[in-house]
């Protein structure tokens, strides 16, 4: 089952370049500078975990990528397309909704609070995007929904409503909903932190499965260090809107160079 649709024509900068590129990105809320000229790149197929203390800007990075927020300065490139600008007659002009929709289709997001549509069945939640955004036929969308529910172990719940599901089940449906769009990039923002402890493992198992069976690029904010170690190629440690340290999970978790990373990891181990 192909979970990722990578047939879209790459932009001019995409050939061999990174899939995601942050270029001197600045994000402010009023006087609060959340991201300070942030630079980083993610290659296609890479799994990156973002860690760092509360308020360090991890969620903001994912929200910027999902175009739920806009940058104040700098550029975010996805597959050679800017999220804030587009080319028209050889000139860069502010991105319009059509451009954003096109870029956004490559990106899926799973939220901490699931954000399933409570007025729709599980099936509808999953088929809504493919049918109405991608123009997939109802039958095909249904088939996708069934396959994905199989993957997340909830095939029996296809006609249930979100309110009838546990938090863990809802989050697994939310993962299926995001995957149904066949995104190239999957954004995961603390997807297990709203769950009761006994439900966390089920969701993480599903995500491990996704990581093993697909080549979807994943950006993942999590405090689950075991999971981060298992799935990620690279860990970015954020502090005050900057990357304080980056490396392989073995290096960051086993032998952090920065004092800030050590303090943070110690705090997470104590509370988590």
């Amino acid at each position, binding site marked *: 089952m192909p979970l990722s649709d990578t047939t879209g024509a790459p932009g001019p900068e995409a050939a061999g370049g990174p899939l995601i590129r942050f270029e001197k990105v600045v994000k402010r809320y009023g006087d609060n500078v959340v991201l300070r000229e942030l630079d980083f790149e993610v290659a296609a197929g890479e799994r990156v975990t973002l860690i760092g203390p509360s308020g360090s800007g991890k969620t903001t990075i994912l929200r910027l990528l999902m175009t739920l927020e806009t940058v104040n300065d700098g550029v975010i490139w996805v597959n050679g397309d800017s999220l804030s600008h587009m080319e028209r007659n050889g000139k860069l002009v502010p991105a319009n909704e059509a451009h954003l929709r096109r870029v956004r289709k490559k990106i899926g*997001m799973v939220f901490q609070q699931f*954000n*399933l*549509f409570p007025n*729709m069945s599980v099936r509808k939640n999953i088929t809504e*995007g493919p049918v*109405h955004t991608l123009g997939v036929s109802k039958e095909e969308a249904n088939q996708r929904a069934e396959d994905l529910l199989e993957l997340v172990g909830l095939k029996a719940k296809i006609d249930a409503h979100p309110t009838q599901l546990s938090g863990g089940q809802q989050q697994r449906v939310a993962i299926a909903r995001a995957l149904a769009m066949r995104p190239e990039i999957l954004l995961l923002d603390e997807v297990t932190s709203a769950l009761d402890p006994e439900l966390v493992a089920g969701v993480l198992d599903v995500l491990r499965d996704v990581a093993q069976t697909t080549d979807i690029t994943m950006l993942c904010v999590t405090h689950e260090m075991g999971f981060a170690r298992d799935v990620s190629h690279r860990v970015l440690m954020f502090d005050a809107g900057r990357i304080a340290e980056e490396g392989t999970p073995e290096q960051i978790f086993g032998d952090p160079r920065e004092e800030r990373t050590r303090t943070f990891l110690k705090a997470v181990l104590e509370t988590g």
Partner: protein
Amino acid sequence: MMWDWEFTAVVVPRLLDGLVITVLATLIGYLVALALGLAVAIVRRVRIIGPIVHAVMEFIRTTPLLVQLLFVFFLAPSGMTALTVGITVLGVHYAAYTAEVYRSGIEGVAKGQWEACRALSLPPLRVWGAVILPQAIRKVIPALGNYLIAMFKDTPLLYAITVQEMMFHASGLGGQYFRNFEAITLVGLLFVLVSVPSAILIRRLERRYAAV
């Protein structure tokens, strides 16, 4: 003072005629208020025209219905019947209230629902039609229902613009037979007869939609 049963027999059939007009004006006016109020609540979120529409609705909400009825009645083209004017003004007046109700319902939908729509790139028609409004309206059904009753109780004002609803007949015949007491009492009774069952029905609907 004795109750005049003979007069009652004369006036009740006319009052029932009037009741038909009253119910008709309420129902059509209510549909106008529901549809227009919804349109206003959505358009209010649009830049530039949103604030203009809001200002107009605010003006309508803060001037008396009776004044609006008379104003439009005197301005209306002669081809427009008093009933049409009455229904339109009632509908538009109450749209100013239902728009506020819808607005609170829309604002009550969790921010995460908008973000999920955005993450799926759903087209605006689906965002509103399949996600936001179904959730928003469900929550405000009780408040909308209350305006149906309120509107019904405001219909006697249509008498002022010669619509032949209940008050029109009551005051005409009551004056003619010097039996205003019976006439008005009967109008009140008929109002109770309709609004109490309606209120019960609305509460029942409310309970049904309050679940989930």
